[in-house]
């Protein structure tokens, strides 16, 4: 073969590569939201899918469900009821029922990691109650589930209601012996609408059944030093007879471990977002505000810590430092048991850095 023909031949071959591995949209149906729950039989997985259909030139979302011995088998089963094969490579949200999450959920999400086409940066959430309700909410639901859940969780991350809970991050923490996972916790509220209720606490790769609700979840995010773009806390300042809302700018956490005692020290920089009393122009008021907020946040942090210790859920990653530098304490026994009985002291110092454009 001449030297000139060879590059042309190679280029031709390169183009051929796409022939075998192309995946056309006309052959598949993209699934943006998927739900997993236990099937009726022991060891069976039931999967729900929300996928787009085109009716009268508009996009509607239909649901399909399937059961099988694994997530993949359930998906195959569900594909039998749809015109095109269900494709989860662009999945945005995976919901797992709280019952299923009470055992190690990794086997159910393995298929997402094994197939390279699949997106592993999708959100994962734990849902309370019947999974079917989340695909057909009983209340007056004005949105489409396929749009609603991704946006709800994105907003949750933005406002520190939850920390980033992607599938990849969740799987990594399920295998990490030194820290426990938290996942967004969804409920169907009194109006029959799906809502973000807080975070689900995991202990050693399974859901403990305990959750931290809204404000506590924000505080947990601060304690983990995983802030979203906006982190706001509101308190009733009785001495001043006024509410005060602050925006957390930065949290600096220091963890000291000595003689089986842990000290968590937080330096929190804040900006005041709301204070109708309007006397922050006085230096004394600013110092009083710092003192008041330090005491309140410390009290709340201690409450959150107690809940996690009761749940044997080391969501703050105390175990990371213990495992790395205090092997005697780490080897004392099962870390979750040790964590639940550990004496942890919390110290909070709030620094009022900004008062916004009003004093």
């Amino acid at each position, binding site marked *: 073969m001449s*030297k000139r023909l060879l590059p042309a031949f*190679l280029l031709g071959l390169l183009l051929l590569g796409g022939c075998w*591995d192309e995946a056309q949209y006309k052959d598949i149906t993209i699934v943006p939201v998927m739900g997993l729950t236990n099937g009726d039989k022991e060891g069976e997985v039931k999967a729900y899918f929300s996928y787009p259909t085109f009716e009268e030139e508009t996009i509607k979302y239909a649901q399909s469900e399937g059961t099988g011995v694994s997530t993949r088998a359930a998906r195959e089963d569900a594909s039998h009821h749809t015109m095109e094969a269900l494709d989860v490579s662009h999945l945005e949200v995976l919901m797992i029922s709280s019952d299923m999450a009470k055992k190690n959920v990794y086997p159910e999400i393995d298929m997402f990691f094994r197939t*390279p086409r699949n997106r592993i940066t999708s959100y994962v959430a734990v849902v309370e109650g019947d999974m079917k309700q989340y695909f057909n909410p009983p209340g007056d639901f004005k949105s489409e589930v396929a749009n609603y859940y991704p946006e709800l969780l994105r907003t949750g991350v933005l406002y520190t209601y939850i920390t980033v809970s992607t599938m990849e*991050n969740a799987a990594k923490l399920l295998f990490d012996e030194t820290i426990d996972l938290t996942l967004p916790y969804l409920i169907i509220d009194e109006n029959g609408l799906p809502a973000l209720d807080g975070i689900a606490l995991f202990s050693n790769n399974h859901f403990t059944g305990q959750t931290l609700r809204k404000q506590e979840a924000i505080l947990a995010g601060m304690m983990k030093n995983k802030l979203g773009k906006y982190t706001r806390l509101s308190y009733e300042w009785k001495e001043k007879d006024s509410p005060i809302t602050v925006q957390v700018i930065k949290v600096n956490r220091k963890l000291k471990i000595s003689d089986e005692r842990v000290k968590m020290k937080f330096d929190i920089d804040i900006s005041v977002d709301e204070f109708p009393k309007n006397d922050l122009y006085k230096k004394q008021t600013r110092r009083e505000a710092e003192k008041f907020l330090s005491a309140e946040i410390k009290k709340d942090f201690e409450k959150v810590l107690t809940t996690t210790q009761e749940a044997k859920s080391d969501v703050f990653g105390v175990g990371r430092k213990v495992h790395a530098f205090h092997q005697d304490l780490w080897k004392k026994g099962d870390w979750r048991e040790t964590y639940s009985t550990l004496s942890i002291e919390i110290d909070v110092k709030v620094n009022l850095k900004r008062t916004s454009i009003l004093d």
Partner: protein
Amino acid sequence: MLTLSRIQFFLLLFVVQTGTVFVSFQHRLIIEAKTNSWVVFIIAGIFHYIQILLYEKYYERFKPGRLVAGLYIAYWSLTIVTFLAYLNYTLSVWIFPNTPQIVTMVIIVGVSLYANMTRIETVINLPATILPLFPIFILFLFMAIPDLVWTRLFPLDLTDIIPLLKGLFMAQATFLGIEFYLFFRKYVIQKVKGMPLFIYQSAWFFFFFTILVFILLFYPINAIDFLPEPLLNILKSQKVTFVERLDLFFLFIWVIWSVVAITLYFFMCVQARRIYFNNESKFLTILSHFLLIIISSFFATKDRSNFLREIIVYPQLLFTIVIPLIVILMNRRNKK
């Protein structure tokens, strides 16, 4: 006569040494040495520096005969088969699950065949194609920084020597191709000793060490057991707005990198044949490429490519330490 500038020489050596292995060497090293891996690699780095310093001191005495040259051709052919089999297996699981492996194999080897049928300068300057890809790769990797956990580098347990030695043995994969130094050094017209050599050593070390440390910091140690290409998984975990799969971008960079490395190995086989056997047959060049496609296709499965990657370290020690030592010593004795 072939002449090389210092930059050409080091770039060629860097591509040959990093080539295919930089995506996979961490897996086995971490499995053996656990969190101690980064300390083990620092020790490996010291050994590497000592080795190239010794090469620099004695390269003029490295004058292989026909037998030794023939053995090196066989060793490089084995390396090519190992690389090709692993490259094609990895491509088939990450990008082209349905494309027949022979097609990807022909494309990769075809580049080498084309380059090796043209002028020597074409191959020598081929590593320059990697240069623009290097900062892109580093940029992609650094996107993982927010997910790194520094405590994952600890605890260190340096009391049990066996896992450390096993780790050190696994780290030898990053030494592959170091013998090119002995073959190419005599063609370099500029000063190499001293600072230039130290800069090369630092580049080699920091390249491998950075990737290793990123992997250690990104994943819990027990997750590495089932991640054969943890580096690819790190990039797959990055969410960016401009592309759905960042790992694909990186995979193509790695493929180009590997193709250049494989081409250089083929080049060495062709040149060794030309210099030591006075054989410039183009038919043999085509035939050897064709044969290596066939053999590599046979080994492009999980078990077989793993087998080759496991055994390649043994001949590597022979061809980078034992044989150069014998050749240099024999040459010294003959001089006396």
